[in-house]
C-alpha cells in the first residue's frame, strides 16, 4: 500500500547516452517514459526496480515524420501530441481516435505511444490501432536499429520482442490510403476507463468488394490480436449482409477472452462479433 523503496532514476539527455546505459547490465534500468503505467504499478504492490532510465523528452524520440507512404512516429510522442498533430489525422484516424480515449487529459499529456506499446497490456488502448496498419516497430540498441513487424511485437502476456538492451525508437505506420478505418472502445464509463474490449479496423472496399481487411481487438487475449481468420473470410468477398453475419459469428467463435473485474468472458466474446459487424456496417 505504501512504498518505502527508493528508485535510482537516470535522466540521459540523448538517445546515445540512453542506449549506452541500457547496453550494460549494471547500468541498465527499467525504461520510464511518461510513467503513467509504471507509477501506478509501483504504488499498488509491484515492487519498484532498483534502477530506472528516463526516456522522457529525449529529442530523438519525440518526432513525427510524414513520408510518401508511411508515417514515422517517435516512441516518446504523447497521446496529447497525437491529438495536436493534425496533418497525420487523416492518414491514421483509428490511432488518433484510440489515443483520445487513453485515461484522461492528464494521462494523455504524460503517456507516450512507445510506453503504451512497451507496457504490453492486452488492454493498451493504442495497440489494435497500431496493429491494423501492418507497420513496424523500430528498435534501437548500440548494435544499430532493427525493424520488427507489429504483428510480431507482442509475444505474450506483457511480453514484447525487444531485447533488454533495446529501446523503442519509433513506429513506422503505413498510411491508410483509400481504406476506411474505425475504432471503438467499450469501457465501463465514457472517460478514465480501461477497456472491456476494443476494436480497430482498416478495410478497403472497391465496387462493393472487400480488397483488404485488417481487424484487431484488444482485451480478448493475452496480447492485442489481429482477427486473421475473419480477415481471410472477408478478403476478396462481396460485402453482403450474409457475409457480415458470418464475420460476426466467426469473430465470436475465434476469440477466447477471460472474465475479470471489468467484464465477463461471454460479453466480451459477443461484443467481439458485434464490433466486427459495426466495422463492416460503417464502410
Amino acid at each position, binding site marked *: 500500500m505504501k512504498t518505502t523503496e527508493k528508485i535510482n532514476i537516470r535522466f540521459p539527455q540523448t538517445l546515445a547516452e540512453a542506449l549506452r546505459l541500457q547496453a550494460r547490465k549494471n547500468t541498465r534500468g527499467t525504461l520510464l517514459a511518461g510513467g503513467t503505467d509504471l507509477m501506478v504499478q509501483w504504488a499498488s504492490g509491484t515492487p519498484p526496480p532498483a534502477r530506472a532510465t528516463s526516456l522522457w523528452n529525449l529529442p530523438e524520440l519525440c518526432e513525427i515524420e510524414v513520408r510518401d507512404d508511411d508515417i514515422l512516429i517517435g516512441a516518446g510522442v504523447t497521446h496529447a501530441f497525437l491529438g495536436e498533430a493534425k496533418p497525420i489525422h487523416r492518414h491514421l484516424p483509428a490511432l488518433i481516435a484510440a489515443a483520445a480515449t487513453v485515461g484522461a487529459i492528464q494521462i494523455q499529456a504524460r503517456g507516450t505511444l512507445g510506453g503504451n506499446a512497451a507496457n504490453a497490456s492486452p488492454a493498451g488502448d493504442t495497440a489494435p490501432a497500431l496493429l491494423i496498419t501492418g507497420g513496424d516497430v523500430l528498435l534501437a540498441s548500440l548494435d544499430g536499429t532493427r525493424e520488427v513487424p507489429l504483428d510480431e511485437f507482442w509475444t505474450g502476456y506483457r511480453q514484447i520482442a525487444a531485447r533488454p538492451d533495446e529501446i523503442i525508437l519509433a513506429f513506422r505506420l503505413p498510411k491508410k490510403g483509400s481504406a476506411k478505418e474505425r475504432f471503438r472502445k*467499450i469501457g*465501463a464509463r465514457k*472517460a478514465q476507463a480501461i477497456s472491456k474490449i476494443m476494436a480497430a479496423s482498416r478495410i478497403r472496399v472497391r465496387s462493393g468488394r472487400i480488397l483488404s481487411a485488417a481487424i484487431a481487438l484488444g482485451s480478448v487475449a493475452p496480447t492485442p490480436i489481429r482477427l486473421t481468420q475473419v480477415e481471410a473470410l472477408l478478403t476478396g468477398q462481396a460485402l453482403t449482409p450474409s457475409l457480415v453475419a458470418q464475420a460476426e459469428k466467426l469473430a465470436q*467463435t475465434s476469440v477466447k477472452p477471460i472474465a475479470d*473485474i*471489468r467484464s465477463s468472458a461471454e*460479453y466480451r466474446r459477443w*461484443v467481439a462479433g458485434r464490433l466486427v459487424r459495426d466495422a463492416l456496417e460503417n464502410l
Partner: protein
Amino acid sequence: MNKAVSQSGRLIGQGMVRVDADGKVRGLTRYLNDIDYTGMLHGVVVRSPVARGRFKALVPDPAFDWSSVVVATAEDIPGENVVHMHDRTMPLLAEVGGELLYRGEPVAVVAAKTIELATEAAAHLRVEVEELPPLLTLQDAIAIFKKTPVKFDSMQDQDIVKGDLAKGFAAADDIIEAEYWAGHQEQLYIENQGFTVFPLADGSILCEGSLQCPYFPVHELNDPLQLPPEKIRVRQTPVGGAFGGKEEYPTMLIGYAALPALKSGKPVKITYDRHEDILFTPKRHPVWVRYKTGVKKDGTLTALECDFILDGGAYLTISDVVMFRGILHCALAYRCDNLIIRGRVARTHSFPCGAFRGFGAPQAIWGMESHIDAIAARLGKPPHTYRRQLHVRPGDVTPTGQILSKENGSTACLDLALQHAKFAQKRRQASRGKLRKGQTKYYGIGLSFFAHGAAFTGDGEAKFKAKGRMELALLDDGKPGVNIRVSSTEMGQGVHTIFTQIASDALALDPARIRFPMADTGLVPNSGPTVASRTTMVVGNVVYRASQDLKDQMESFASQRYFRGAKTVLKNSQFAAKSRRPLSFAKVARDMLTEHGPVNGFFEFKLPPDAKWDQVTFKGDSYPGYSWSANIAEVEIDPLTCELAVTRVTAVLDVGRVINPILAAGQVEGGLTQALGYAIMEKMGTGQNGLYDASRLQTYIIPTSLDTPIYDVKFVEYPYSFAPPGGKGLGELPMDGLAPAIANAVESAIGKRLRTIPITPEDLFAALHPAQGDNTP
C-alpha cells in the same frame, strides 16, 4: 463576498456565494493531511489477514529494530475494550485468544516518526491465526434465510405492522411477488479518512480531524480510554466530503490513534490512503428485499408483505438504525391499509457496513419503486397514472399510523415532474425491446416517487434536544460580530453558508459580521451529528431561534442604555428607536461586551408536544417532517453493444423552504450523480479472501462528468412551519430514488425488468441474449 445579498437584506431564499468558496477555490484551505506537528508520530493499523479465524498471537520479528517504534495492542487499552455507540461486543482492537470476524479487523496500531517506518514495522508484525470458514456475503446469508430460517443469524429484528395482512390478501384479486438486490457502495469522499490525537498534560486528549459528528467520539470512547467526556475534545478540520462515511467511523480512528498517543505521550496521526480507505471503512449495506403485494383489479393495494434484509457485516455497529430507516421507507409513499414489514440485519464475515447518504432509504426505495412499476404493469396501468392513483397525500396514514399534514408536497412533486418531463408523451416512444422508426438505440423512460423522513427517527429529536449558541464576539478583524456555535460540520454541503444566511436574516445583521468557525466540542454546545437530513430543519431552527434570542437581548440592552427604554429594533445592522438617530451594531456590541462580559443567544430544539412515538412497536410519528421527490430517468441502450447511457433526469423535490437555491440544486445534482453510479456502475464484489474485488479508483467505477445526464431540477416548497425558517431534509433525498427510475426506464427500453443493481452492459446482454452466442443483428 456575499455578492448575492438582496436589496432588502433578506438572504433566505437567495443564492448567496459560499462563505468557504474563496479558500477552497484558491487551494488555501488546509485539510488534516496538510497539517503536521513537531514530534508527531504516524500511525498504521495492523489488520487481520483472514475473514474469520482464531487470533493465536501477534509475533514481532526479532530481527527488526523496534527501539523507535510504538506498538499498541488490546493490552494497551486503559479501560474496557468496547466502543460505546456500537454493538457492545465490538472491540476497539481484537484480543489474542478471541475470534477475528472480518478481513482487516484491527489487531494493533504501530506508530513511528515517519509513515514509511511505521509501515515497515507493521509488516514485521506477524498475525498468527487459525483460519475458520467464513460466511462472506449477503447472498450466502439469504440462501440460509430461505432454506433454514432458524440458522439465519440476524443481529437486529424489527417489524412494522398495520391492519390485518391476511384479510388484505384475501381481498386481493391478484398477488405480485418479487425480490430485489443491491450491493455495497463506497462513499468516495475526495479527502480520505484521517485523525490526529494529542495527549495533553492533564491526561485528556485533543482530537483533530475530518468528521461529521464531533460529539460522537466524546461520548463513545469513555469506556476504552477511561476518559470522561470533558477529557475528550474534538476539533473539526475542513472536511473534504463525507456522505455518511465520516459519521460513525472516525470514532474508531480516534481510538486507534489514541492508544499509541497515550502510550508514547506524543501526538499520533493516522491517515488512510485511497486503497486502505476503500477496503477498511464502512460502506452502504447490501440489501435483499422481497415484496409480496395483493391488489384489486382497480389497483387498490390491499396487502403488502415485505422482508428487508441488510448485510450488516461482522458487527452491528449502527446497522440497526439504518435498518429502522429502511423499513420506515419500504412502503411510505403509497396507500395500503394492511401490511407487515420485517427488517433484519444479517451477520456476515465482512467489514461492518455503516452510514451512507440515504441510510437504508435508497435500498428500500430501490425495491419499492421497482415493484410499483411491476404492479402497474400487471394491472395494465401506466406507471404514472397508477402512482397518481395510489400515492399518499395530506390526511393519509403512514405504515406507522402517522397522519400526513398539509405540509407534504407529494402530489405537487409527482404532477410537476410528469408534466415537466412530458412523461406520458415520451413514454409512447419507448422501445420496449424493439427499435421504433428512426431509433438507432432502445429508448426508455422511467419514473420513481418517494419520500425521505427528515431528522432523527421517531422521538429521537425530542430526546436529543439539539442546542445552539449565537455568540457576540470580536471577530478575526477585531470588530464586533457574531459567531455561530453549533456542532454541525461543513463537509461540502454548504451548511456554513446557509446558517450564515439564516442568522443574518434572524438578526437583521450584515452577513459579513457573522462567522461560522469549525466545530470544536470545547466551544460549541451539542446540536447533534451532521446526519439524517436534520441540519437545515433542526439545527437551522436552533440557529434561527438563538439568533432571535441574541437580537432580543441586544435590543433590550440598546433600549435601556441609549434610548431611555424606548422600543428599539435591530434592523439593517443598526439599532433604531423612534425619532432617534440610529446606532451602529458595532458601537452597541462593543459597549455591551464591555459592560456585560460574554453575550450569547441560546436555543434548545423541541418537537411539537403532541408528537408520539413507540420505539418498541414502531407506531406513531416516525419523522417530524417528510421531504418528497419524483425522479424521471431517460435512457438509451445501444443494441450493438448493450451499452447504457442515462441521457436526461428530471427531479422535482419538496424540501420545504429552500434556503439557498444554488446550493440546493448542487446538492441535488451531486446526489443524483451518486445515485447514477449506484444504479449503473458501482460494483464492489467480495472475493474469497474477504476483500472487495474493486478496491481502487481503477476498478471501482463512478461516473465522470461525461457520464452524467442533463439534469432538470425543480423545487416545490411546502415549508415545515413548526420550525422556521421551514427547511425539511435535503441532503439524502437526491440519493434515494434514481436507481429504480433508471431500472424502470431500462424496462421501458428493452421490455425486461432487471432486479439487481448496478445494471451493467453485461447484465443487459444476459437479459437480451439469454442464449450464448445469440447473433441477432
